């Protein structure tokens, strides 16, 4: 029966599903309120919604992770009970997660074989490899299966995740933000191939996304959730991006970006990175930054796929990684000590701020005081903490930056992602800022938090700060930056003023074609 486990995609037809009045309550909180969506077999359906709108609750109900309070699920027109993910798999329902579930040190072939329900005690690799290559011939994807997954590019990993689901005989796939770590070209390539499979009736797809252009380009139909209810649904061809955005956020007013002040031609360079060379995380390749200058009052965006040296660059600038060469701030060598940081008004907003910019178990008040707690009022070194002053300042910042927290004395880890990011912004952007280094500030945040955070960064720029913005989100860089520089393979490979930028050209450089 082992041979029978691997099916060519055409031998099983796509599976269609429908949720009927699905409701999920956690205590008194209704996460999902009578949601009915229909995804016919062989279609590409998009599911839109903000963080906390109920997308993942809905998907977890379909996949058997949650048991809905009421409502039912139909698979191919028949009502079914899904008690566990195993049941979902038996009905041909599979899910590709936002974060990869492949085992990094195993090869693609090992990952596929070990994920099967029945693995022989001793694996006959020559036989398995023959079968796998026969299976791969029926797939539109071309992925090397004999290399460890950790060596694959993000796009290849994402394809391999999809291949794994198809290999396991799943013909209805939930894709959870499948392109969040891909370049635009990789994303188009991957979604195009998946779209092709749905058109041939080999697969049904329900894609969670927040990128309107992907939804418009690849999906047949869309359902939009807002606060647990279905706020709209329809054919993609009949909806504009504005219609979908309205369904998603309702009539909430988003913070608007300040008008971009022109960069004065004689703006002084605040940050200069000259001939910096540092080993990367693996120690095998160096990152080399020959010349990077950020002037006062401009935002320089660093584009690139994650893992191409952006993290190492930000670590060099933060003094966490030793490097050869010179980092110069306001004309003087900069070693990122606390004194130098303070003297030059350098501020940092690293990625994943809860891990990288906060002490998780300390209170919001304490975290907000990290830049100032050791200074007395007259600017000299403080010996005793000024608890009352810290509290007053924290309360002011919390109101000013709209940080939602139960109390200033709550541990910062209890805050939601958007509010942690707001708290870190509050700390880093208060007072004079001459140089601001930001990494992926909006990753995983919802519309209103994103708009707010971008508006704050723009305000800092207009007030004269030099901003270095590293982001994996090209749309964000296009919106925020004055210049975009592409980083690939540890080097800065392409630079363009944003108003003349061409996304396709940037994408090609990100993918290493330069």
């Amino acid at each position, binding site marked *: 029966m082992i041979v029978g486990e691997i099916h060519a995609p055409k031998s099983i037809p796509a599976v269609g599903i429908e949720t009927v009045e699905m409701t999920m309550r956690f205590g008194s909180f209704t996460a999902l309120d009578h949601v009915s969506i229909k995804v016919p077999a062989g279609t590409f359906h998009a599911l839109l919604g903000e963080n906390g709108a109920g997308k993942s609750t809905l998907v977890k109900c379909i996949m058997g992770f949650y048991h809905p309070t009421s409502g039912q699920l139909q698979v191919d027109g028949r009502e079914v009970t899904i008690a566990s993910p195993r049941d979902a798999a038996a009905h041909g329902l599979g899910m590709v*997660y936002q974060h990869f*579930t492949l085992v990094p040190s195993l090869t693609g072939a090992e990952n596929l074989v070990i*994920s099967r329900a029945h693995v022989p005690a*001793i*694996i006959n*690799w020559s036989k398995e490899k023959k079968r796998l290559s026969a299976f791969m011939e029926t797939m539109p994807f071309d992925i090397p299966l004999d290399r460890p997954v950790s060596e694959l590019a993000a796009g290849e990993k994402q394809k391999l995740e999809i291949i794994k689901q198809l290999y396991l005989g799943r013909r209805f796939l939930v894709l959870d933000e499948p392109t969040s770590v891909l370049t635009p070209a990789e994303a188009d390539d991957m979604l195009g191939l998946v779209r092709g499979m749905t058109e041939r009736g080999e697969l049904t797809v329900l894609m969670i996304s927040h990128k309107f252009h992907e939804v418009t380009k690849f999906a047949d139909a869309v359902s939009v959730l807002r606060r647990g209810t279905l706020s709209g649904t329809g054919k993609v061809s009949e909806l504009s991006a504005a219609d979908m955005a309205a369904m998603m956020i309702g009539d909430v007013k988003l913070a608007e970006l300040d008008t971009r002040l022109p960069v004065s031609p004689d703006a002084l360079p605040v940050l200069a990175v000259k001939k910096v060379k540092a080993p990367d995380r693996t*120690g095998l390749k160096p990152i080399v930054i020959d010349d990077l200058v950020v002037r006062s009052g401009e935002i320089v965006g660093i584009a690139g796929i994650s893992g191409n040296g952006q993290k190492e660059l930000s670590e060099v600038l933060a003094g966490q990684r*030793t490097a050869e060469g010179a980092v110069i701030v306001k004309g003087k060598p900069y070693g990122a000590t606390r004194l130098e940081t303070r003297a030059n008004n350098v501020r940092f907003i690293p990625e994943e701020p809860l891990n990288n910019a906060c002490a998780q178990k300390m209170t919001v008040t304490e975290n907000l005081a990290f830049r100032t707690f050791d200074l007395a009022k007259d600017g000299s070194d403080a010996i005793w903490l000024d608890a009352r002053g810290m509290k007053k300042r924290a309360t002011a910042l919390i109101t000013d930056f709209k940080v939602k927290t139960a109390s200033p004395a709550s541990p910062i880890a209890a805050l939601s992602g958007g509010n942690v990011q707001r708290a870190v912004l509050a700390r880093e952007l208060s007072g004079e800022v001459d140089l601001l280094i930001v990494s992926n500030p909006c990753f995983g945040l919802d519309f209103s938090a994103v708009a707010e955070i971008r508006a704050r960064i723009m305000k800092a720029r207009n007030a004269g700060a030099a901003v270095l913005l590293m982001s994996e989100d090209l749309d964000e860089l296009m919106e925020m930056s004055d210049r975009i520089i592409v980083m690939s393979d540890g080097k800065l490979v392409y630079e363009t003023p944003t108003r003349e930028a061409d996304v396709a050209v940037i994408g090609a450089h990100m993918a290493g074609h330069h």
Partner: protein
Amino acid sequence: MEATGIGVWGVPLAIFAGAVRVSTPFIFVSLGEAITERSGRINLGLEGTLVFGAMTAYGVAVMTLSPWLGVLAAMAVGACLGLLHGFICKFPKVNDIAIGIAMMQFGLGLAFFLGKPFIQPAAPKLPAIAFGAWSNLPQIQAALNINVLFLIGAALALLLWWAFRNTRVGLILRVVGDSSDAARAMGLNPDTVRLLATAAGGALAAIGGAYLSLYYPGSWNEGISSGQGLMAVALVIFARWNPIGCFLAALLFGGAGALGPALQSVGVTKGYYLFYAAPYVLTLVIMVATSSPTRSLAGAPGALSITK
């Protein structure tokens, strides 16, 4: 020196013989630790397991007059100590390294307590195979008199190396060791896999102990182990979690340990005590040389608490 008949050739020969003799416990303990660490857990308690295994093997061999029954009994108690370690580590917020140190002290103390009556009686020894029977030189005969456990250890290293790639159990172990989340997504329970891996590791470490008490030095006393159980943990990291690497590292370590006695046997009388430190110095040097502050350890299981 003329009397020996082979002169300075005695040094490499003695190093070879020493490597085989000294490395055997290291082979078993490091293979056991490799299995445990590949599943994503560290068991530092193997020193205690080793000594407890030595005591059990000796005691059972004394009572039954069968050294092999002693080895089996040692494996059983080693597995039990491993199960205990694995069971405690299943609870949330329990640190495997701290539990390992506690288990080490527990194993040592219990072995000394229960082993008192066995210090006097003599136990039958484990057999060796005389590969040197063709030669009439006593040194060669002695050096090629290779104990059976060493051969089993070498075969086991090959078997494990093969099994990590070619068997279901091997792949499951690597999946669990690399990513608990991926394992759970596959419906595997990482705690159970680690529990069994720790038990298997304990059983193998106890064989190392049985070798100490039943072959070389071949008696039971409280000073029987000189830290083999702890050094083996370092060997696993040095061998990058590769079973064949563990075998070779153990040989290298054993060979370095034989340097002092070998030099002494050819008449070097000054400073040979310094050479007794050779294995430890060698381990330090190799660890420093193969590590780097700016790069992560290649081949380390991703779920291991020291790599997180």
